[in-house]
Protein backbone atom coordinates (compact mmCIF):
# COMPACT_ATOMS: atom_id res chain seq x y z
CA UNK A 1 0.00 0.00 0.00
CA UNK A 2 2.85 2.38 0.84
CA UNK A 3 4.40 1.76 -2.57
CA UNK A 4 1.04 2.44 -4.17
CA UNK A 5 0.77 5.77 -2.34
CA UNK A 6 4.33 6.78 -3.21
CA UNK A 7 3.80 5.90 -6.84
CA UNK A 8 0.65 8.03 -6.96
CA UNK A 9 2.44 10.91 -5.25
CA UNK A 10 5.33 10.74 -7.68
CA UNK A 11 2.82 10.84 -10.49
CA UNK A 12 1.59 14.22 -9.24
CA UNK A 13 4.96 15.94 -9.54
CA UNK A 14 4.89 16.63 -13.29
CA UNK A 15 1.25 17.74 -13.13
CA UNK A 16 1.98 20.05 -10.23
CA UNK A 17 4.94 21.43 -12.17
CA UNK A 18 2.64 22.03 -15.15
CA UNK A 19 0.09 23.81 -12.98
CA UNK A 20 2.71 26.21 -11.64
CA UNK A 21 3.81 26.84 -15.24
CA UNK A 22 0.22 27.69 -16.22
CA UNK A 23 -0.21 30.04 -13.26
CA UNK A 24 3.19 31.59 -13.92
CA UNK A 25 2.60 31.94 -17.65
CA UNK A 26 -0.94 33.26 -17.31
CA UNK A 27 0.14 36.69 -16.15
CA UNK A 28 2.66 36.98 -18.98
CA UNK A 29 0.15 35.95 -21.64
CA UNK A 30 -2.31 38.67 -20.68
CA UNK A 31 -2.54 41.55 -23.07
CA UNK A 32 -0.68 44.46 -21.52
CA UNK A 33 2.52 44.85 -19.58
CA UNK A 34 2.80 42.24 -16.79
CA UNK A 35 4.63 44.66 -14.52
CA UNK A 36 1.80 47.18 -14.67
CA UNK A 37 -0.83 44.44 -14.43
CA UNK A 38 0.71 42.96 -11.31
CA UNK A 39 1.30 46.37 -9.75
CA UNK A 40 -2.19 47.54 -10.68
CA UNK A 41 -0.88 50.99 -11.52
CA UNK A 42 -1.20 53.11 -14.62
CA UNK A 43 0.81 55.97 -16.09
CA UNK A 44 3.84 55.43 -13.89
CA UNK A 45 7.13 57.23 -14.35
CA UNK A 46 10.07 55.24 -15.80
CA UNK A 47 11.82 55.31 -12.42
CA UNK A 48 8.77 53.93 -10.64
CA UNK A 49 8.39 51.31 -13.38
CA UNK A 50 11.96 50.12 -12.90
CA UNK A 51 11.38 50.06 -9.17
CA UNK A 52 8.26 47.89 -9.48
CA UNK A 53 9.92 45.60 -12.01
CA UNK A 54 12.88 45.09 -9.71
CA UNK A 55 10.59 44.57 -6.73
CA UNK A 56 8.61 41.89 -8.58
CA UNK A 57 11.78 40.48 -10.10
CA UNK A 58 10.51 41.09 -13.63
CA UNK A 59 13.77 42.64 -14.78
CA UNK A 60 15.51 39.26 -14.65
CA UNK A 61 15.55 36.53 -17.34
CA UNK A 62 12.37 34.46 -17.52
CA UNK A 63 13.78 31.27 -15.98
CA UNK A 64 15.04 33.24 -12.99
CA UNK A 65 11.60 34.78 -12.67
CA UNK A 66 10.11 31.29 -12.56
CA UNK A 67 12.55 30.09 -9.91
CA UNK A 68 11.79 33.23 -7.93
CA UNK A 69 8.08 32.48 -8.28
CA UNK A 70 8.50 28.88 -7.11
CA UNK A 71 10.67 30.05 -4.23
CA UNK A 72 7.96 32.43 -3.09
CA UNK A 73 5.33 29.72 -3.44
CA UNK A 74 7.31 27.34 -1.26
CA UNK A 75 7.53 30.05 1.40
CA UNK A 76 3.77 30.49 1.27
CA UNK A 77 4.03 33.90 -0.40
CA UNK A 78 1.33 34.03 -3.06
CA UNK A 79 1.46 37.78 -3.57
CA UNK A 80 -0.94 40.48 -2.45
CA UNK A 81 -4.35 41.40 -3.78
CA UNK A 82 -4.33 44.65 -5.73
CA UNK A 83 -7.70 45.65 -4.31
CA UNK A 84 -7.41 44.83 -0.62
CA UNK A 85 -3.59 44.82 -0.46
CA UNK A 86 -3.84 41.76 1.78
CA UNK A 87 -1.88 38.54 1.15
CA UNK A 88 -3.77 36.33 -1.29
CA UNK A 89 -3.24 33.26 0.86
CA UNK A 90 -4.93 34.89 3.86
CA UNK A 91 -7.92 35.89 1.76
CA UNK A 92 -8.14 32.42 0.35
CA UNK A 93 -8.03 30.77 3.77
CA UNK A 94 -10.69 33.15 5.08
CA UNK A 95 -13.10 32.38 2.24
CA UNK A 96 -12.30 28.71 1.69
CA UNK A 97 -14.43 27.34 4.58
CA UNK A 98 -17.54 28.92 3.03
CA UNK A 99 -16.99 27.00 -0.21
CA UNK A 100 -16.11 23.79 1.63
CA UNK A 101 -19.25 24.03 3.74
CA UNK A 102 -21.40 24.56 0.66
CA UNK A 103 -19.68 21.77 -1.26
CA UNK A 104 -19.84 19.31 1.64
CA UNK A 105 -23.55 19.87 2.22
CA UNK A 106 -24.13 19.58 -1.53
CA UNK A 107 -22.24 16.31 -1.83
CA UNK A 108 -24.05 14.92 1.23
CA UNK A 109 -27.41 15.80 -0.31
CA UNK A 110 -26.35 14.33 -3.65
CA UNK A 111 -25.12 11.07 -2.12
CA UNK A 112 -27.94 10.66 0.39
CA UNK A 113 -30.54 10.95 -2.37
CA UNK A 114 -28.61 9.73 -5.40
CA UNK A 115 -27.42 6.36 -4.07
CA UNK A 116 -30.81 5.10 -2.77
CA UNK A 117 -32.58 6.33 -5.90
CA UNK A 118 -30.04 4.57 -8.10
CA UNK A 119 -30.32 1.33 -6.10
CA UNK A 120 -34.12 1.30 -6.15
CA UNK A 121 -34.18 2.16 -9.86
CA UNK A 122 -31.84 -0.77 -10.54
CA UNK A 123 -33.84 -3.23 -8.43
CA UNK A 124 -37.11 -2.17 -10.02
CA UNK A 125 -35.67 -1.90 -13.50
CA UNK A 126 -38.26 -0.78 -16.04
CA UNK A 127 -40.79 0.28 -13.38
CA UNK A 128 -42.38 3.73 -13.33
CA UNK A 129 -40.01 4.67 -10.53
CA UNK A 130 -37.02 3.71 -12.66
CA UNK A 131 -38.29 5.64 -15.66
CA UNK A 132 -39.32 8.69 -13.67
CA UNK A 133 -36.14 8.92 -11.63
CA UNK A 134 -33.87 8.37 -14.61
CA UNK A 135 -35.74 11.01 -16.61
CA UNK A 136 -35.37 13.38 -13.68
CA UNK A 137 -31.68 12.49 -13.49
CA UNK A 138 -31.17 13.31 -17.14
CA UNK A 139 -32.99 16.63 -16.71
CA UNK A 140 -30.80 17.38 -13.68
CA UNK A 141 -27.70 16.44 -15.63
CA UNK A 142 -28.69 18.84 -18.43
CA UNK A 143 -29.62 21.68 -16.08
CA UNK A 144 -28.04 25.11 -16.52
CA UNK A 145 -27.56 25.52 -12.77
CA UNK A 146 -27.28 29.31 -12.93
CA UNK A 147 -30.85 29.35 -14.28
CA UNK A 148 -32.02 26.70 -11.83
CA UNK A 149 -30.76 28.90 -8.99
CA UNK A 150 -32.65 31.91 -10.32
CA UNK A 151 -35.85 29.85 -10.61
CA UNK A 152 -35.54 28.66 -7.02
CA UNK A 153 -34.97 32.25 -5.88
CA UNK A 154 -38.11 33.35 -7.76
CA UNK A 155 -40.16 30.59 -6.14
CA UNK A 156 -38.82 30.31 -2.60
CA UNK A 157 -37.60 33.85 -2.00
CA UNK A 158 -39.89 35.84 -4.27
CA UNK A 159 -43.26 34.09 -4.27
CA UNK A 160 -43.18 32.15 -1.00
CA UNK A 161 -40.76 34.34 0.92
CA UNK A 162 -39.30 31.35 2.78
CA UNK A 163 -35.59 31.81 2.18
CA UNK A 164 -33.22 34.78 1.99
CA UNK A 165 -31.76 35.70 -1.39
CA UNK A 166 -28.08 36.00 -0.54
CA UNK A 167 -25.33 35.69 2.03
CA UNK A 168 -24.49 33.09 4.67
CA UNK A 169 -26.43 34.36 7.67
CA UNK A 170 -28.77 37.18 8.60
CA UNK A 171 -27.09 40.47 9.53
CA UNK A 172 -28.89 40.30 12.88
CA UNK A 173 -26.39 37.76 14.09
CA UNK A 174 -22.77 38.47 14.68
CA UNK A 175 -20.16 36.22 16.20
CA UNK A 176 -16.45 35.63 15.59
CA UNK A 177 -15.67 32.74 13.23
CA UNK A 178 -14.34 29.73 15.12
CA UNK A 179 -14.32 26.95 12.55
CA UNK A 180 -15.34 29.03 9.54
CA UNK A 181 -18.31 26.73 9.06
CA UNK A 182 -21.41 28.82 9.61
CA UNK A 183 -23.53 25.84 10.66
CA UNK A 184 -21.12 24.98 13.48
CA UNK A 185 -20.21 28.54 14.43
CA UNK A 186 -23.87 29.56 14.72
CA UNK A 187 -24.48 26.65 17.08
CA UNK A 188 -21.39 27.52 19.15
CA UNK A 189 -22.45 31.16 19.42
CA UNK A 190 -25.51 30.07 21.37
CA UNK A 191 -27.55 32.89 19.84
CA UNK A 192 -31.19 32.04 19.44
CA UNK A 193 -32.21 31.58 15.83
CA UNK A 194 -28.68 31.84 14.47
CA UNK A 195 -28.51 28.21 13.41
CA UNK A 196 -31.91 28.36 11.72
CA UNK A 197 -30.79 31.46 9.85
CA UNK A 198 -27.62 29.75 8.68
CA UNK A 199 -29.60 26.73 7.49
CA UNK A 200 -32.11 28.89 5.61
CA UNK A 201 -29.26 30.68 3.85
CA UNK A 202 -27.51 27.44 2.97
CA UNK A 203 -30.42 25.37 1.74
CA UNK A 204 -31.02 26.84 -1.73
CA UNK A 205 -27.36 27.18 -2.78
CA UNK A 206 -26.59 23.65 -1.66
CA UNK A 207 -29.58 22.24 -3.56
CA UNK A 208 -28.48 24.08 -6.69
CA UNK A 209 -24.90 22.90 -6.31
CA UNK A 210 -26.04 19.32 -5.57
CA UNK A 211 -28.22 19.03 -8.69
CA UNK A 212 -25.66 17.83 -11.24
CA UNK A 213 -23.70 15.54 -8.86
CA UNK A 214 -27.01 14.07 -7.69
CA UNK A 215 -28.00 13.21 -11.25
CA UNK A 216 -24.58 11.74 -12.03
CA UNK A 217 -24.51 9.67 -8.82
CA UNK A 218 -28.02 8.31 -9.35
CA UNK A 219 -27.24 7.24 -12.92
CA UNK A 220 -23.89 5.75 -11.97
CA UNK A 221 -25.33 3.85 -9.00
CA UNK A 222 -28.09 2.40 -11.13
CA UNK A 223 -25.77 1.15 -13.86
CA UNK A 224 -23.22 -0.18 -11.35
CA UNK A 225 -25.98 -2.06 -9.50
CA UNK A 226 -27.37 -3.50 -12.75
CA UNK A 227 -23.92 -4.72 -13.70
CA UNK A 228 -23.23 -6.28 -10.31
CA UNK A 229 -26.62 -7.94 -10.05
CA UNK A 230 -25.82 -9.97 -13.16
CA UNK A 231 -22.64 -11.38 -11.56
CA UNK A 232 -22.26 -14.99 -10.49
CA UNK A 233 -21.63 -14.20 -6.83
CA UNK A 234 -24.94 -12.39 -6.55
CA UNK A 235 -26.73 -15.34 -8.15
CA UNK A 236 -24.90 -17.65 -5.73
CA UNK A 237 -25.95 -15.52 -2.79
CA UNK A 238 -29.54 -15.68 -3.99
CA UNK A 239 -29.32 -19.43 -4.56
CA UNK A 240 -27.98 -19.91 -1.03
CA UNK A 241 -31.34 -18.61 0.09
CA UNK A 242 -30.16 -15.32 1.58
CA UNK A 243 -32.84 -12.72 2.03
CA UNK A 244 -33.15 -10.24 -0.87
CA UNK A 245 -32.28 -7.45 1.55
CA UNK A 246 -28.99 -9.15 2.41
CA UNK A 247 -28.16 -10.00 -1.18
CA UNK A 248 -28.70 -6.44 -2.29
CA UNK A 249 -27.41 -4.64 0.77
CA UNK A 250 -24.28 -6.70 1.32
CA UNK A 251 -23.29 -8.63 -1.77
CA UNK A 252 -24.44 -6.36 -4.54
CA UNK A 253 -24.24 -2.86 -3.05
CA UNK A 254 -20.75 -3.25 -1.65
CA UNK A 255 -19.29 -4.11 -5.01
CA UNK A 256 -21.43 -1.61 -6.86
CA UNK A 257 -20.19 1.14 -4.57
CA UNK A 258 -16.61 0.86 -5.82
CA UNK A 259 -17.16 2.84 -9.04
CA UNK A 260 -19.72 5.04 -7.29
CA UNK A 261 -17.19 6.19 -4.68
CA UNK A 262 -14.88 7.24 -7.49
CA UNK A 263 -17.69 9.09 -9.19
CA UNK A 264 -18.52 10.92 -5.98
CA UNK A 265 -14.89 11.86 -5.52
CA UNK A 266 -14.49 13.09 -9.06
CA UNK A 267 -17.50 15.34 -8.59
CA UNK A 268 -15.32 17.58 -6.41
CA UNK A 269 -13.85 19.23 -9.50
CA UNK A 270 -17.37 19.65 -10.87
CA UNK A 271 -18.40 21.17 -7.53
CA UNK A 272 -15.60 23.71 -7.68
CA UNK A 273 -16.75 24.79 -11.14
CA UNK A 274 -20.37 24.76 -9.99
CA UNK A 275 -19.41 26.82 -6.96
CA UNK A 276 -18.37 29.66 -9.28
CA UNK A 277 -21.90 29.89 -10.66
CA UNK A 278 -23.78 29.05 -7.47
CA UNK A 279 -21.81 31.48 -5.33
CA UNK A 280 -22.30 34.23 -7.91
CA UNK A 281 -26.06 33.76 -7.97
CA UNK A 282 -26.47 33.61 -4.21
CA UNK A 283 -23.70 36.10 -3.34
CA UNK A 284 -22.11 33.35 -1.27
CA UNK A 285 -18.79 34.70 0.03
CA UNK A 286 -16.60 31.78 -1.07
CA UNK A 287 -13.76 30.98 -3.43
CA UNK A 288 -15.88 30.87 -6.59
CA UNK A 289 -17.30 34.36 -6.17
CA UNK A 290 -13.89 35.61 -5.11
CA UNK A 291 -12.40 34.33 -8.38
CA UNK A 292 -15.17 35.85 -10.53
CA UNK A 293 -14.93 39.19 -8.74
CA UNK A 294 -11.15 39.18 -9.09
CA UNK A 295 -11.32 38.41 -12.80
CA UNK A 296 -13.75 41.25 -13.43
CA UNK A 297 -11.76 43.62 -11.18
CA UNK A 298 -8.52 42.63 -12.97
CA UNK A 299 -7.03 41.66 -9.63
CA UNK A 300 -4.54 39.40 -11.38
CA UNK A 301 -2.39 38.31 -8.43
CA UNK A 302 -5.57 36.84 -6.92
CA UNK A 303 -6.57 35.14 -10.17
CA UNK A 304 -3.09 33.71 -10.61
CA UNK A 305 -2.83 32.24 -7.13
CA UNK A 306 -6.48 31.27 -6.89
CA UNK A 307 -6.09 29.24 -10.06
CA UNK A 308 -3.06 27.51 -8.60
CA UNK A 309 -4.68 26.79 -5.23
CA UNK A 310 -7.92 25.46 -6.71
CA UNK A 311 -6.08 23.18 -9.13
CA UNK A 312 -3.87 21.92 -6.30
CA UNK A 313 -6.90 21.19 -4.12
CA UNK A 314 -8.75 19.37 -6.90
CA UNK A 315 -5.61 17.34 -7.54
CA UNK A 316 -5.17 16.40 -3.89
CA UNK A 317 -8.82 15.41 -3.61
CA UNK A 318 -8.47 13.28 -6.73
CA UNK A 319 -5.40 11.66 -5.19
CA UNK A 320 -7.36 10.86 -2.03
CA UNK A 321 -10.12 9.37 -4.20
CA UNK A 322 -7.54 7.25 -5.99
CA UNK A 323 -6.14 6.04 -2.67
CA UNK A 324 -9.60 5.25 -1.33
CA UNK A 325 -10.25 3.35 -4.50
CA UNK A 326 -7.11 1.31 -3.92
CA UNK A 327 -8.19 0.76 -0.34
CA UNK A 328 -11.64 -0.59 -1.13
CA UNK A 329 -10.61 -2.39 -4.29
CA UNK A 330 -7.54 -4.56 -3.71
CA UNK A 331 -7.44 -5.48 -7.40
CA UNK A 332 -6.18 -1.98 -8.28
CA UNK A 333 -3.55 -1.93 -5.56
CA UNK A 334 -1.78 -5.07 -6.66
CA UNK A 335 -1.77 -4.35 -10.35
Amino acid at each position, binding site marked *: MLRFILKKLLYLV*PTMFGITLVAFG*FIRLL*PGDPVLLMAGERGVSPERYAQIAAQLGYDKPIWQQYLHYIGNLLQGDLGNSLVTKKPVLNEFLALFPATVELALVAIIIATAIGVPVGVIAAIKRGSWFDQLSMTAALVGFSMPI*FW*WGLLLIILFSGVLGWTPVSGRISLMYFFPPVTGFMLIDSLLSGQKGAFASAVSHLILPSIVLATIPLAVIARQTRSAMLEVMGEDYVRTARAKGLSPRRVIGVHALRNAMIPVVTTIGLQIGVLMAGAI*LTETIFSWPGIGKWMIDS*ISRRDYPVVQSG*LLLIAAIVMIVNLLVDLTYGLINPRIRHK
Partner: protein
Amino acid sequence: MTDTAVKISDAAIRRRMLKEFWFYFSQNRGAVIGLVVFAILVLTAIFAPLLAPHDPTHQYRDALLVPPFWQEGGRAEFLLGTDAVGRDMLSRLIYGAQYSLFIGIVVVSIALVGGIIIGLVAGFFGGWVDTVIMRVMDVVLAFPSLLLALVLVAVLGPGLTNAMIAIAIVYQPHFARLTRAAVMGEKAREYVTAARVAGASNLRLMVKTILPNCLAPLIVQATLSFSSAVLDSAALGFLGMGAQPPASEWGTMLAEAREFILRAWWVVTFPGLAILVSVLAINLMGDGLRDALDPKLKRS
Protein backbone atom coordinates in the same frame (compact mmCIF):
# COMPACT_ATOMS: atom_id res chain seq x y z
CA MET B 1 -16.56 -8.35 -62.54
CA THR B 2 -15.19 -9.21 -59.15
CA ASP B 3 -14.31 -5.56 -58.73
CA THR B 4 -17.89 -4.40 -59.07
CA ALA B 5 -19.09 -7.22 -56.84
CA VAL B 6 -16.75 -6.04 -54.13
CA LYS B 7 -17.94 -2.46 -54.55
CA ILE B 8 -21.59 -3.39 -54.32
CA SER B 9 -21.06 -5.45 -51.22
CA ASP B 10 -19.14 -2.56 -49.66
CA ALA B 11 -22.10 -0.29 -50.13
CA ALA B 12 -24.41 -3.04 -48.97
CA ILE B 13 -22.38 -3.53 -45.81
CA ARG B 14 -22.54 0.16 -45.13
CA ARG B 15 -26.30 0.16 -45.66
CA ARG B 16 -26.70 -2.80 -43.35
CA MET B 17 -24.56 -1.16 -40.67
CA LEU B 18 -26.62 1.98 -40.94
CA LYS B 19 -29.81 -0.06 -40.72
CA GLU B 20 -28.52 -1.91 -37.68
CA PHE B 21 -27.49 1.39 -36.10
CA TRP B 22 -30.90 2.89 -36.72
CA PHE B 23 -32.55 -0.26 -35.29
CA TYR B 24 -30.71 0.08 -31.97
CA PHE B 25 -31.01 3.87 -31.93
CA SER B 26 -34.78 3.79 -32.54
CA GLN B 27 -35.20 1.19 -29.76
CA ASN B 28 -34.45 4.06 -27.39
CA ARG B 29 -37.55 6.23 -27.23
CA GLY B 30 -35.74 9.08 -25.49
CA ALA B 31 -33.10 9.17 -28.20
CA VAL B 32 -35.72 9.54 -30.92
CA ILE B 33 -37.45 12.34 -29.00
CA GLY B 34 -34.05 14.00 -28.57
CA LEU B 35 -33.36 13.69 -32.28
CA VAL B 36 -36.72 15.25 -33.18
CA VAL B 37 -36.21 18.17 -30.79
CA PHE B 38 -32.70 18.66 -32.09
CA ALA B 39 -33.96 18.67 -35.67
CA ILE B 40 -36.54 21.32 -34.75
CA LEU B 41 -33.75 23.33 -33.14
CA VAL B 42 -31.63 23.12 -36.29
CA LEU B 43 -34.56 24.16 -38.47
CA THR B 44 -35.34 27.04 -36.11
CA ALA B 45 -31.77 28.24 -36.36
CA ILE B 46 -31.68 27.98 -40.16
CA PHE B 47 -35.03 29.66 -40.72
CA ALA B 48 -34.72 32.17 -37.88
CA PRO B 49 -35.12 35.20 -40.19
CA LEU B 50 -38.40 33.76 -41.49
CA LEU B 51 -39.74 32.52 -38.16
CA ALA B 52 -38.95 35.47 -35.92
CA PRO B 53 -41.82 37.97 -35.83
CA HIS B 54 -39.53 40.89 -34.94
CA ASP B 55 -35.96 42.04 -35.30
CA PRO B 56 -34.20 40.53 -32.23
CA THR B 57 -32.33 43.74 -31.44
CA HIS B 58 -35.09 46.26 -32.20
CA GLN B 59 -36.16 48.09 -29.06
CA TYR B 60 -39.86 48.91 -28.86
CA ARG B 61 -39.78 51.88 -26.52
CA ASP B 62 -43.53 51.70 -25.88
CA ALA B 63 -43.36 48.04 -24.84
CA LEU B 64 -40.92 47.58 -21.95
CA LEU B 65 -41.28 44.35 -19.93
CA VAL B 66 -44.59 43.42 -21.55
CA PRO B 67 -45.69 40.03 -20.11
CA PRO B 68 -46.53 37.02 -22.34
CA PHE B 69 -49.81 37.25 -24.24
CA TRP B 70 -51.80 35.03 -21.88
CA GLN B 71 -51.09 37.21 -18.90
CA GLU B 72 -52.85 40.43 -18.03
CA GLY B 73 -51.24 43.30 -19.89
CA GLY B 74 -49.79 40.98 -22.52
CA ARG B 75 -49.95 41.90 -26.19
CA ALA B 76 -50.60 39.56 -29.11
CA GLU B 77 -47.73 41.02 -31.13
CA PHE B 78 -45.24 39.94 -28.42
CA LEU B 79 -46.20 36.30 -27.77
CA LEU B 80 -43.62 35.66 -25.04
CA GLY B 81 -43.43 39.26 -23.88
CA THR B 82 -40.57 41.74 -24.13
CA ASP B 83 -37.43 42.39 -22.10
CA ALA B 84 -36.38 45.47 -20.15
CA VAL B 85 -35.53 47.51 -23.25
CA GLY B 86 -38.56 46.38 -25.25
CA ARG B 87 -37.07 43.65 -27.41
CA ASP B 88 -39.32 40.75 -28.41
CA MET B 89 -38.46 37.66 -26.32
CA LEU B 90 -39.64 35.11 -28.87
CA SER B 91 -37.54 36.59 -31.67
CA ARG B 92 -34.50 36.73 -29.43
CA LEU B 93 -34.99 33.12 -28.38
CA ILE B 94 -35.32 32.01 -32.01
CA TYR B 95 -32.13 33.81 -32.99
CA GLY B 96 -30.48 32.44 -29.84
CA ALA B 97 -30.77 28.93 -31.34
CA GLN B 98 -28.27 30.04 -33.99
CA TYR B 99 -25.74 30.96 -31.32
CA SER B 100 -26.10 27.70 -29.42
CA LEU B 101 -25.75 25.47 -32.47
CA PHE B 102 -22.91 27.53 -33.86
CA ILE B 103 -21.07 27.39 -30.53
CA GLY B 104 -21.63 23.65 -30.25
CA ILE B 105 -20.40 22.95 -33.77
CA VAL B 106 -17.33 25.18 -33.54
CA VAL B 107 -16.28 24.01 -30.08
CA VAL B 108 -16.72 20.32 -30.85
CA SER B 109 -14.95 20.63 -34.21
CA ILE B 110 -11.91 22.35 -32.73
CA ALA B 111 -11.74 20.02 -29.73
CA LEU B 112 -12.36 16.91 -31.85
CA VAL B 113 -9.79 17.67 -34.54
CA GLY B 114 -7.19 18.82 -32.02
CA GLY B 115 -7.86 15.86 -29.73
CA ILE B 116 -7.73 13.33 -32.55
CA ILE B 117 -4.40 14.64 -33.86
CA ILE B 118 -2.83 14.74 -30.41
CA GLY B 119 -4.30 11.39 -29.38
CA LEU B 120 -3.23 9.69 -32.63
CA VAL B 121 0.32 10.93 -32.27
CA ALA B 122 0.51 9.95 -28.58
CA GLY B 123 -1.05 6.52 -29.04
CA PHE B 124 0.75 5.66 -32.26
CA PHE B 125 4.27 6.65 -31.30
CA GLY B 126 4.13 5.86 -27.58
CA GLY B 127 7.29 6.28 -25.53
CA TRP B 128 8.37 9.72 -24.41
CA VAL B 129 6.13 11.48 -26.97
CA ASP B 130 3.14 9.83 -25.33
CA THR B 131 4.38 10.60 -21.82
CA VAL B 132 4.95 14.29 -22.53
CA ILE B 133 1.63 14.75 -24.33
CA MET B 134 -0.38 12.97 -21.68
CA ARG B 135 1.25 14.91 -18.82
CA VAL B 136 0.30 18.14 -20.60
CA MET B 137 -3.28 16.84 -20.93
CA ASP B 138 -3.25 15.99 -17.21
CA VAL B 139 -2.36 19.60 -16.44
CA VAL B 140 -5.31 20.89 -18.47
CA LEU B 141 -7.63 18.37 -16.78
CA ALA B 142 -6.38 19.37 -13.32
CA PHE B 143 -8.27 22.66 -13.55
CA PRO B 144 -12.06 22.75 -13.19
CA SER B 145 -13.17 23.28 -16.79
CA LEU B 146 -15.30 26.38 -16.27
CA LEU B 147 -12.59 28.06 -14.20
CA LEU B 148 -9.91 27.41 -16.81
CA ALA B 149 -12.23 28.63 -19.56
CA LEU B 150 -12.90 31.79 -17.53
CA VAL B 151 -9.21 32.49 -17.05
CA LEU B 152 -8.49 31.80 -20.72
CA VAL B 153 -11.21 34.27 -21.66
CA ALA B 154 -9.63 36.77 -19.26
CA VAL B 155 -6.38 36.30 -21.17
CA LEU B 156 -7.92 36.44 -24.64
CA GLY B 157 -10.53 39.07 -23.84
CA PRO B 158 -14.30 38.54 -23.35
CA GLY B 159 -16.34 37.70 -26.43
CA LEU B 160 -17.99 34.83 -28.22
CA THR B 161 -15.02 33.77 -30.38
CA ASN B 162 -12.62 33.70 -27.45
CA ALA B 163 -15.15 31.89 -25.28
CA MET B 164 -15.47 29.19 -27.94
CA ILE B 165 -11.69 28.84 -28.25
CA ALA B 166 -11.33 28.64 -24.47
CA ILE B 167 -14.02 25.96 -24.12
CA ALA B 168 -12.54 23.96 -27.00
CA ILE B 169 -9.10 24.01 -25.36
CA VAL B 170 -10.59 22.80 -22.11
CA TYR B 171 -12.51 19.94 -23.78
CA GLN B 172 -9.77 18.79 -26.10
CA PRO B 173 -7.91 16.51 -23.60
CA HIS B 174 -10.98 14.27 -23.32
CA PHE B 175 -10.83 13.58 -27.04
CA ALA B 176 -7.06 13.14 -26.96
CA ARG B 177 -7.33 10.57 -24.16
CA LEU B 178 -10.11 8.63 -25.86
CA THR B 179 -8.29 8.58 -29.19
CA ARG B 180 -5.05 7.53 -27.55
CA ALA B 181 -6.70 4.67 -25.67
CA ALA B 182 -8.48 3.43 -28.78
CA VAL B 183 -5.35 3.73 -30.91
CA MET B 184 -3.30 1.79 -28.38
CA GLY B 185 -5.92 -0.94 -28.43
CA GLU B 186 -6.00 -1.13 -32.22
CA LYS B 187 -2.28 -0.66 -32.89
CA ALA B 188 -1.31 -4.22 -32.10
CA ARG B 189 -4.08 -5.83 -34.18
CA GLU B 190 -3.21 -7.96 -37.22
CA TYR B 191 -4.84 -5.70 -39.79
CA VAL B 192 -2.55 -2.85 -38.77
CA THR B 193 0.51 -5.07 -39.00
CA ALA B 194 -0.71 -6.27 -42.39
CA ALA B 195 -1.05 -2.69 -43.64
CA ARG B 196 2.39 -1.86 -42.28
CA VAL B 197 3.94 -4.87 -44.01
CA ALA B 198 2.21 -3.80 -47.21
CA GLY B 199 4.22 -0.60 -46.95
CA ALA B 200 1.71 1.93 -45.63
CA SER B 201 3.29 5.10 -44.27
CA ASN B 202 2.84 6.12 -40.65
CA LEU B 203 0.43 8.86 -41.65
CA ARG B 204 -1.66 6.44 -43.68
CA LEU B 205 -1.61 3.87 -40.88
CA MET B 206 -2.80 6.48 -38.37
CA VAL B 207 -5.46 8.20 -40.43
CA LYS B 208 -6.78 5.59 -42.86
CA THR B 209 -6.16 2.28 -41.10
CA ILE B 210 -6.54 2.90 -37.37
CA LEU B 211 -8.67 6.02 -36.99
CA PRO B 212 -11.90 4.72 -38.59
CA ASN B 213 -11.94 1.90 -36.05
CA CYS B 214 -11.67 4.31 -33.13
CA LEU B 215 -14.59 6.55 -34.07
CA ALA B 216 -17.44 5.11 -31.99
CA PRO B 217 -16.34 6.44 -28.57
CA LEU B 218 -15.35 9.74 -30.20
CA ILE B 219 -18.81 10.21 -31.70
CA VAL B 220 -20.43 9.63 -28.31
CA GLN B 221 -18.00 12.00 -26.61
CA ALA B 222 -18.59 14.60 -29.34
CA THR B 223 -22.34 14.53 -28.67
CA LEU B 224 -21.85 14.89 -24.94
CA SER B 225 -19.34 17.69 -25.47
CA PHE B 226 -21.79 19.45 -27.75
CA SER B 227 -24.30 19.72 -24.92
CA SER B 228 -21.60 20.71 -22.42
CA ALA B 229 -20.41 23.38 -24.85
CA VAL B 230 -23.90 24.84 -25.04
CA LEU B 231 -24.09 24.82 -21.23
CA ASP B 232 -20.62 26.22 -20.60
CA SER B 233 -20.86 28.95 -23.21
CA ALA B 234 -24.20 29.97 -21.72
CA ALA B 235 -22.52 30.00 -18.29
CA LEU B 236 -19.72 32.21 -19.64
CA GLY B 237 -22.34 34.48 -21.23
CA PHE B 238 -24.17 34.58 -17.92
CA LEU B 239 -20.96 35.61 -16.14
CA GLY B 240 -20.43 38.36 -18.72
CA MET B 241 -17.41 36.66 -20.30
CA GLY B 242 -19.07 35.08 -23.36
CA ALA B 243 -21.16 36.63 -26.12
CA GLN B 244 -21.59 40.33 -25.38
CA PRO B 245 -24.88 42.27 -25.35
CA PRO B 246 -26.92 42.92 -27.43
CA ALA B 247 -26.30 39.38 -28.75
CA SER B 248 -29.35 37.18 -28.21
CA GLU B 249 -27.25 34.33 -26.84
CA TRP B 250 -29.35 32.60 -24.18
CA GLY B 251 -26.80 32.86 -21.36
CA THR B 252 -26.20 36.53 -22.09
CA MET B 253 -29.97 37.10 -22.11
CA LEU B 254 -30.15 35.52 -18.65
CA ALA B 255 -27.38 37.78 -17.39
CA GLU B 256 -29.28 40.85 -18.59
CA ALA B 257 -32.49 39.53 -17.04
CA ARG B 258 -31.01 38.89 -13.60
CA GLU B 259 -32.04 42.15 -11.99
CA PHE B 260 -35.65 41.66 -13.05
CA ILE B 261 -36.12 38.16 -11.65
CA LEU B 262 -38.63 39.19 -9.01
CA ARG B 263 -40.54 41.56 -11.32
CA ALA B 264 -40.69 39.83 -14.69
CA TRP B 265 -40.50 36.04 -14.50
CA TRP B 266 -40.63 35.59 -18.28
CA VAL B 267 -37.32 37.30 -19.06
CA VAL B 268 -35.61 34.75 -16.81
CA THR B 269 -37.66 31.64 -17.42
CA PHE B 270 -37.66 31.34 -21.21
CA PRO B 271 -33.94 31.65 -22.05
CA GLY B 272 -33.07 29.08 -19.37
CA LEU B 273 -35.81 26.78 -20.56
CA ALA B 274 -34.40 27.03 -24.09
CA ILE B 275 -30.94 26.05 -22.80
CA LEU B 276 -32.35 23.16 -20.77
CA VAL B 277 -34.45 21.76 -23.63
CA SER B 278 -31.59 21.91 -26.14
CA VAL B 279 -29.06 20.37 -23.78
CA LEU B 280 -31.53 17.68 -22.73
CA ALA B 281 -32.32 16.80 -26.35
CA ILE B 282 -28.64 16.46 -27.22
CA ASN B 283 -27.97 14.36 -24.11
CA LEU B 284 -30.88 12.06 -24.95
CA MET B 285 -29.41 11.63 -28.41
CA GLY B 286 -26.02 10.92 -26.87
CA ASP B 287 -27.48 8.17 -24.70
CA GLY B 288 -29.08 6.59 -27.77
CA LEU B 289 -25.87 6.85 -29.76
CA ARG B 290 -23.93 5.17 -26.99
CA ASP B 291 -26.41 2.32 -26.81
CA ALA B 292 -26.34 1.89 -30.58
CA LEU B 293 -22.57 2.17 -31.00
CA ASP B 294 -21.32 0.29 -27.95
CA PRO B 295 -21.25 -3.42 -28.77
CA LYS B 296 -20.88 -4.33 -25.11
CA LEU B 297 -24.24 -2.86 -24.21
CA LYS B 298 -25.87 -4.22 -27.36
CA ARG B 299 -25.55 -7.84 -26.36
CA SER B 300 -27.02 -7.41 -22.90
